[in-house]
């Protein structure tokens, strides 16, 4: 498995502000993903972070609200823009290493928007 870290681990933010979440992996991976888990709910894929190109977003998620960067094979960021209380969730990144066909998850970022 890969060692995955996320920063921050948790944050409390004011409505209308933005927060950038970082995801760092200890080795190069082919694919990185960002998920949202709303309180008491399952995981929903936001987007696939593509190295060197724009992220691929799932239905219901747009780049203006959730801009994603992936400058190299070990790092990605997700920004939650113009936040509202409905954005309060756990945000998780996951990675899929070559040949494993398995996603391993970071520890998550617990976001509360007041």
């Amino acid at each position, binding site marked *: *498995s890969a060692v995955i870290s996320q920063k921050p681990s948790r944050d409390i933010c004011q409505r209308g502000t933005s927060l950038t979440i970082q995801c760092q992996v200890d080795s190069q991976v082919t*694919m990185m*993903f960002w998920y949202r888990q709303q309180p008491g*709910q*399952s*995981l929903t*894929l936001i987007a*696939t972070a593509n190295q060197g190109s724009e992220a691929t977003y799932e239905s219901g998620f747009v780049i203006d609200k959730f801009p994603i960067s992936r400058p190299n094979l070990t790092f990605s960021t997700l920004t939650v823009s113009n936040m509202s209380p409905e954005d309060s969730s*756990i945000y*998780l990144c*996951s990675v*899929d290493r070559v040949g494993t*066909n*398995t*996603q*391993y*998850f*970071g*520890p*998550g970022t*617990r976001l509360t928007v007041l």
Partner: protein
Amino acid sequence: AQKVTQAQTEISVVEKEDVTLDCVYETRDTTYYLFWYKQPPSGELVFLIRRNSFDEQNEISGRYSWNFQKSTSSFNFTITASQVVDSAVYFCALSVANDMRFGAGTRLTVKP
């Protein structure tokens, strides 16, 4: 389209009881992967097992065992002699071509 159903929203057992978590999946693809993840109260998602669609062999790992049956599209998870530390939300997931879909999760509470 892929779909995963975990019909059991919550299960409560007393320590040392055996418990089975059900998972039913839907896909038209012949190549796919099935997973179980554990999410303890701390929130991280812990990988437990992966099964590919061509391997129906059941697996046992300590107190954990998994029963994969393509005939019923099920991938059930059994914990034997449950312990308080097993208390968590358990997610079943289906992946087709890196498109992973999660079930709603089953919250397991193991009481001492």
